[in-house]
């Protein structure tokens, strides 16, 4: 029990720090949102109209008052779940914008994360089961090699081959212009087509961490005394590998997976930027570029809270899965 309470306390302290940093960091950046907006509108070769900057400043109601008052207002708003109005999408609220982007990211990254975890764990287990065979070397060397390739390069190769050369899939976007988002078959098939390449790129690199982790853990567990004892008792190799090796080896991976799920929102900036996918990652990139404080704050908050909760869950899960942890903490 004490273990769980300590974890929860740690969680709350980190949450407060995250919320506070989240407030401070955007405000320490140089640049003024109104000017950023106008210079983006005018482009780099047009003179900026000061009257327009002034009007946009008024429109956004760029915060005044000292930092402390702003901080108080911000905390109160966060508690209420009110994140204000986005600068980039004025007058639409931040909540509205996040609701628009969230499904895309959750579906794309959620599905690929789960698939990556499953594929990675199975491949890793297989490699460990057939350790030092040809299968093992192909899996481990292959994944190490792919792991060294830069992700954006892989993604661009996919676009070049499948979208531009073969023209099998669209090169970017979440869906084409010909279908309106809604609950209809046309839109779903369109959205599915658009999701293939980004999903593929995530599935190529996603399993690597799980493969390596799983293989090494399992090789270790299979070398433990209890596995040797099981072999001496005459249990089949397969049974030993599954119940004595894989089951224990998967523990660290399970907690890692919980953390990975928490990082869903943050981990997609690159893939969404490359494939121009209409999710939260791309939105975050845009919010940062446009000095869109309200949107930025809400997204960062989402991400940090997601990671924190996932960490908490992982900690608690580990405590449940592995009694040794609880005992160490107590002792």
């Amino acid at each position: 029990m004490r273990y769980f309470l300590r974890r929860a306390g740690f969680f709350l302290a980190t949450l407060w720090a995250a919320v506070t940093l989240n407030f401070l960091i955007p405000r320490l950046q140089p640049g003024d949102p109104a000017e950023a907006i106008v210079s983006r509108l005018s482009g780099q070769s047009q003179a900026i109209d000061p009257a327009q900057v002034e009007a946009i400043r008024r429109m956004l109601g760029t915060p005044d008052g000292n930092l402390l008052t702003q901080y108080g207002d911000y905390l109160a708003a966060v508690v209420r779940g009110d994140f204000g109005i986005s600068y980039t999408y004025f007058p639409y609220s931040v909540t509205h914008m996040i609701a628009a982007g969230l499904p895309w990211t959750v579906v794309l990254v959620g599905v690929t994360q789960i698939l990556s975890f499953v594929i990675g764990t199975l491949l890793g287990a297989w490699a460990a089961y057939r350790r030092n065979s040809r299968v093992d070397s192909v899996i481990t060397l292959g994944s190490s090699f792919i792991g060294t390739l830069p992700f954006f390069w892989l993604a661009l190769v996919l676009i070049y081959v499948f979208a531009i050369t073969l023209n099998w899939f669209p090169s970017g976007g979440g869906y084409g212009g010909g279908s309106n988002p809604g609950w209809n078959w046309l839109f779903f098939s369109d959205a599915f087509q658009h999701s293939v390449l980004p999903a593929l790129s995530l599935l190529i690199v996603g399993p690597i961490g799980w493969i390596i982790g799983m293989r090494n853990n399992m090789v270790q567990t299979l070398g433990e005394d209890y596995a040797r004892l099981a072999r001496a008792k005459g249990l089949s190799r397969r049974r030993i590998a599954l119940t004595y090796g894989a089951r224990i080896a998967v523990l660290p991976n399970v907690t890692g997976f919980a953390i990975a799920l928490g990082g869903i929102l943050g981990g997609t900036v690159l893939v969404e930027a490359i494939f121009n996918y209409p999710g939260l990652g791309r939105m975050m990139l845009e919010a940062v570029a446009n000095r869109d404080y309200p949107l930025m704050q809400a997204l960062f908050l989402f991400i940090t809270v997601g990671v924190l909760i996932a960490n908490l869950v992982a900690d608690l899960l580990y405590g449940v899965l592995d009694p040794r942890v609880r005992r160490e903490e107590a002792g």
Partner: protein
Amino acid sequence: MKRPIILRTAAVAVSATLVLAGCTGTSGTNGSGGTGTGAANGLIDYLDYGDFGGGTAPQANYNPYLEATRLGAVDYVFEKLMVYDNFSCTPKPWLATEFSWTDPKTLTFKLRDGVQWNDGKPFTSKDVAFTFDLLKKHQPLDTKGVWRYLTSVEAPDAQTVTIKFKEPGASTFTLVTDVFVVPEHVWSQQADPVKFVNAQNPVGTGPMKVKNFNPNQLTIERNPDYWQADKVKVQEIRFHKADSGGAVEQLKLSRGEYDTNAMFVPDIKKAFVDRDPEHNHYWYPPGGSISVYLNLTKAPFDDVAFRKALTTAFDRDQIITKAQLGYVKAASQSGLVVPGQEKWLPAGLKDQGRISYDAAATDAALTAAGYKKDAQGKRLGKDGKPLSFTFKVPGSYTDWVSAAQIIVQNLKAQGFDVNLETPNPPTYESDRAIGRYDVLFGVHGGSCNMFRNFSEPLGSDQSAAIGQKAASNFVRWNDPGTDKLLEELRLATTDEAQKTAVAGLTKVMVDQVPMIPLWYGAKWFQYQTDKATGWPDEKNPYAAPGDNVLVLTNLKPAGS
């Protein structure tokens, strides 16, 4: 958990045989599809245009005053009293058929007869008066700041609008006519017009109506009740959300997927024109001046002789061919955009104020002004110490960076010790505004309002102390003579008086060199003539590329 978990994964079969209706970006050059009604009555079925604004996840927003977030349809739904041809800067009668100055502070517009809002209600002077009052009540909507200059806007009768100015108003004519007019019967119902997105069938007087919107495509269709519907030969315009990658967009352009676009393309001839020389064209008319800004609060930049010497130091031709790919023209020292604004040039200005590269002349002039070279060839200040300074340029503006590299070379050749710094754009803009720099690029002028063109970069009221944000006078030019000329220009009531004041200001530019113009920023504009002809071009520059309604009302089906 005694038994191992067996995880079953659903195998996802990717069938490449899914046939999709709608455009997934493979074709887009032939005029089939669409409504099919267009071609029958001498109209172009549809045209594919480029991006429609609104960020990467656009939301429906047709509030014409929310310039930062509104969508591109606004230009076609709402109209103004006068429409400017921004190439030659001539106003064309639009919602107003004529205007007259009753006295220097009173401007009267006569409105066009028979104009209707696209919901069938008549358009009257009350709508115009309401529109101006709306901007007065809700300052964030007044993006041109017209109420800085106005006292009242009234509608004495249904066809007349009277605008009263605080001071003689000729210099603000372009701002007053540049206001989109909105219908009173819709906008008076809104509790907060600043947050009104006008998403459902926006009501305007313009040539097009919104037909369909999703974040990837915005479609607008012809308004059959438009007051000059006979001039609108296009049934539909489809705007396509640009992918974030410029490379993909360029590919689409060269494949012929856009009837018109406005993007930067590294090698337009090879990538676009050569694909179909008969139909693929581009025209890049000049915009504002891109100039070397010297921080005038620092030595040696505060010395007019030093600045004058530098006017010949930069190899503009090399910048144009190498950094700007030959798309732009060298800028005149006068601060005007030539040849478009040549009627404002004072008589006797050599080569319209263009200055050619002459390193030897710079060297001689610097030496004569007391900036000698030492034995190692280092250029010394008047205090005998070597001169060194930094040149800042936003690292992500690649074409500016290559221009800056040429400039730094030119300066090094004169014996200066120059360092190139490449901050990110926001840092750059903030440094420029508060005056934390030695030398960098600035953009000024290029609009049709002469008062803006000169007051923004040169007016002392647009400047600020170092460390404070200047509105637009980033060089900190602070000169009573200039301010006096600007005041004369602002209050001028006759063309003659305006011309005299502008001539005086060009003289300030040429004689005192507050900044050194290098080239005119290009307005990117590509178009295809396989479906529509009548686009503005160099031979027939009836409008600038961004004058959307003017362009639309000049388009005709190809072959007609």
